[in-house]
């Protein structure tokens, strides 16, 4: 099988890769770049565990071929932390006990990040819509919604 050359920026770092025609973005992230924070749950776009931000939009990395995203920028959960300091969303998830088993957390965080990047002051309903494609079987969602609300408030306060 012929290889396809792909240039992508992941969490600010540029990569030139040669990928196969079937390689999905999640495979590239986990197997090649060893960014194993992004999880594969269902593999068919139902659970949202594999959510990353591609050129500013939350997407399923299990439903995108890496060959399709030549020239794109990807942000994964590993890219949230800056200089060893957790992102306010990550801090808020810890504070609000929005994590139990943790498997859905990276995807939840990326859906939440994509929301706050576009809409810094979301309503509760908008938060629910933003994470509607992310399944969590532990928390019952309430703590996650509270964490996102609280991170939004903190980011708002910090920007003033």
């Amino acid at each position, binding site marked *: 099988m012929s290889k*396809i050359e792909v240039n992508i920026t992941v969490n600010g770092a540029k990569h030139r890769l040669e990928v196969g*025609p079937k390689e999905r973005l999640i495979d590239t992230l986990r197997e090649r770049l060893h960014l194993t924070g992004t999880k594969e749950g269902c593999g068919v776009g139902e659970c949202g565990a594999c959510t990353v931000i591609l050129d500013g*939009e939350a997407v399923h990395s*299990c439903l995108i071929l890496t*060959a399709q995203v*030549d020239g794109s920028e990807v942000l994964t959960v590993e890219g949230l932390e800056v200089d060893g300091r957790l992102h306010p969303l990550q801090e808020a998830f810890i504070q609000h006990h929005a994590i139990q088993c943790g498997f859905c957390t990276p995807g939840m965080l990326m859906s939440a990040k994509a929301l706050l990047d576009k809409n810094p002051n979301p309503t509760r309903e908008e938060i629910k819509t933003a994470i509607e*494609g992310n399944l969590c079987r532990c928390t019952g969602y309430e703590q996650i919604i509270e964490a996102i609300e609280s991170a939004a408030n903190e980011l708002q306060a910090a920007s003033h």
Partner: protein
Amino acid sequence: MIDYEFIKARSLKEALDFLGNYEDVKAIAGGTDLIVDIRKENVRAKGFKRLLDISGLKELEFIEKERDRVVLGALLTHTSLIESPIIEQHFPLLASAAKTIGSPQIRNRGTIGGNINNASPAADLLPPLIALKAQVKLCSVRGERTMSLEEFLAGPYKTNRQSDELMTEVHIPLVNEDYLGNFQKIGRRKAMNIARLNLAILLGINDGTIFDPRVVPGAATAYPIRFGKVEEAISGKDIKDIDPVEIGELASEEMISFTGVRWSTPYKRVALASLVKRALESIFQEAKVDE
């Protein structure tokens, strides 16, 4: 194993040349249906040797309002439909259907062209687009042709697209303010659901009298079609004289006249009747408020 060669189209012309040169090509845009089918080795995804990536064709991501219609590029995502002020103003029926698709992740990738060409019986954009009398434009190296979406659909997961053609545009005729629409859907959960049933109804209402009704259930028949008997039963009637419950039951009878009694019929008979009732009630309510 499904094996294929991957080719990225850099321009529409390049894509059409490629489709003209090879017969065993499958086009991929958002990939939200196709990649699942490839992974699951679904028969629908078999029989192609080359995967043509059209997701980078920015020239197919536009919305343009013309004098009597709106022209949509086939690569508009569901998110861009929802966020478009033109769609919100002229075709709220389409926007409300797009909002129910998948999740933000799916809506950010899935396209209107993909939703149409995948031609799933449960596709959420098909009922509203049929109700809006949408036309589709197909291009190939041989030229281009335009046909109604109703004609384009040929069966479940089947269309009348020729192997060298690519859908480039969707045209929706503007409707005046007399027209009111409603979209309904039921599935297993609110997000990420593939419709067990969906429904688009668009009615012209003048002085309380219905004209030009368009009733299109999805996932009720092999592929979405207009329900002529239901339309006939409400056309020319005053909304005050219509019993939504009765029309709901009529819709279920019409569904069974197409499908026969199937394993899902005991459920769908009740569910479709209820969706039709809800849609009509909601439109009648809006019509009264408008008066």
